[in-house]
């Protein structure tokens, strides 16, 4: 079932352009020039129930604008959005009942009170029956290990604990769709892992659709099967993560350690990236040549002591996409 449908969605902002300096500041009090900015320029995509989609792009690409439009708190200038077959603009309250959100940079927990109080409030906001609430909470407590800090005021929690709390708060009403915006920002490796495990677990158990935006590409690699890359308001890539990586990262990196320092290499099958004393970094097109061919060719002119070949990864693929767009 197609759970999220975006059709040619455009979002324009009117931004006030500020004049510079003291005089400018005074002038701004009375009049400021308005300029039109297109944050999202016609994006279309379809997301199925139960998918975990990495929605990534550089800062200012239009990621959070899209998420805000999908959750109904912002209206597109043109185009259509359907969540569960409903327009989030026309039926916001109904749509948001089935959404869970975590913004890594914001909190929805009551800062001064024990964590449990926020859950009690959410229970009432979403009108959850006792049975369902207790069941879900029990499950979340077990998976996220909430018991050790349920009764501690939120302001005293560590960032890792707080994020676990945020996730629990977002999942308490068992939403069908979960928007995660940088859920692991600032966390240590263990905490990141705990969050990732939780997301996978919820997706497996409840078929929760997850839209994840993150600059941490490890999050994306470990969680997502599908990648949507947005840049400058346009979707530039949309497909299975492995496909994008192999298509975009056509080069492999070869790191050589040679017996004597070299200045240049005659072999035209590789492109020299960097030479540092006896270490040489070069890349080659792995569709054109095999690694063995390259090593053989290089071996003819260099005395190779040691070598390693680096696999392409998401990071390379994405850097490539960002720069090519």
């Amino acid at each position, binding site marked *: 079932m197609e759970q999220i449908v975006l059709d040619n969605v455009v979002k324009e902002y009117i931004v006030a352009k500020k004049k510079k300096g003291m005089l400018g500041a005074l002038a701004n009090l009375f009049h400021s020039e308005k300029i039109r900015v297109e944050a999202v320029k016609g994006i279309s995509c379809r997301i199925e129930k139960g998918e975990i989609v990495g929605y990534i792009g550089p800062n200012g690409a239009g990621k959070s604008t899209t998420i*805000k439009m999908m959750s109904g*708190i912002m209206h597109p200038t043109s185009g259509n959005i359907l969540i569960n077959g409903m327009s989030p603009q026309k039926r916001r309250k109904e749509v*948001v009942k089935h959404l869970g959100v975590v913004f890594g940079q914001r909190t929805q927990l009551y800062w*001064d009170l024990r964590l449990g109080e926020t859950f009690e*409030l959410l229970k009432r906001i979403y009108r959850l029956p006792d049975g369902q609430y207790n069941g879900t909470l029990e499950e979340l407590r077990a998976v996220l290990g909430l018991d050790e800090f349920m009764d501690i005021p939120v302001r005293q929690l560590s960032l890792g604990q707080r994020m676990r709390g945020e996730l629990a708060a977002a999942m308490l009403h068992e939403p069908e769709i979960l928007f995660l915006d940088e859920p692991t920002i600032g966390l240590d490796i263990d905490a990141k892992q705990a969050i990732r495990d939780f997301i996978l677990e919820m997706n497996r158990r409840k078929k929760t659709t997850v839209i994840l935006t993150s600059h941490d590409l490890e999050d994306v690699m470990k969680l997502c099967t599908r990648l949507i890359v947005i840049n400058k308001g346009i979707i530039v890539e949309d497909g299975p993560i492995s496909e994008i990586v192999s298509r975009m990262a056509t080069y492999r990196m070869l790191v050589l350690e040679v017996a004597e320092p070299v200045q240049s290499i005659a072999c035209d099958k590789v492109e020299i990236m960097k030479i540092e004393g006896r270490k040489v970094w070069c890349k080659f097109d792995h569709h054109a040549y095999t690694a063995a061919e390259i090593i053989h060719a290089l071996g003819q002119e260099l005395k190779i002591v040691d070598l390693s070949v680096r696999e392409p990864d998401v990071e390379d693929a994405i850097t490539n996409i960002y720069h090519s767009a």
Partner: protein
Amino acid sequence: MAYLYKLKLQVQVYLTYRFEVFANIATHFILILANVFLWNCVYSDQKDILGVGRGQMITYSVLSSCLAVMYHCGIQSSLNKDVREGNIALLLMKPIHLLGAYFAEDVGAVAVRAVSVSVPIFLLGLLFLPLQPPVLFRVLPLVMISYVFGFMILWLLSALVSMFTFVTMELGNMGVVKDMIVAILSGSMIPLWFFPDRVEKMLMMTPFPYTYQLPLGLYIGKIDIGEGLRQIGIQAFWMLLLGVCVALAWKKAKNKVLIQGG
């Protein structure tokens, strides 16, 4: 009910800052003392000014402080803060009426402030100051009603002002200006009957005197029951008018977020 629970949570939040409660009582009491000194000075060679005696006036000013504590409109700062920091997006993603949520929080804050600050101040006043009981115990229900209506008027005004900021986004917090206007024009510091007649008449056409002067005037007997009922009617009118304005402004403000994005 989500709103009731929000109210309860606000009480809890307030109680976590116990020190603030005591500091609040102390600062208010000092302010009240200063006021009492001032009025003592004004009344030094007169028993009665415009039909109001010294004891009545001191009662008026002490109760005015108690009232100020209970006229707490947190929406003014919280709405602003939520818009500025972008939390408004998260709040709008909940199936709950945002204004209702702010209102519930403020009612919670008022309840706890009434019990923890206003009542102690009143008791301290009874002990140390020439505070008088109400002229007629029959007016107490009217005092209560006019307090509740007065709170509604102030709350709606605050909501309106904060939404105004929300729509323009660039004016900074207009709430401070509003607070000053209310402080001077509502009779909270100096009752309006001390103002020149024409000014007083003009001010009676604004909503401000119906927030402080009406409940306080009723209590000390400056406003009789008939006049009090009439003015409560005017309060109701202002409540309705401001309510409509808030509803319209809210629609506009929400659209602004929806279209411009917080």
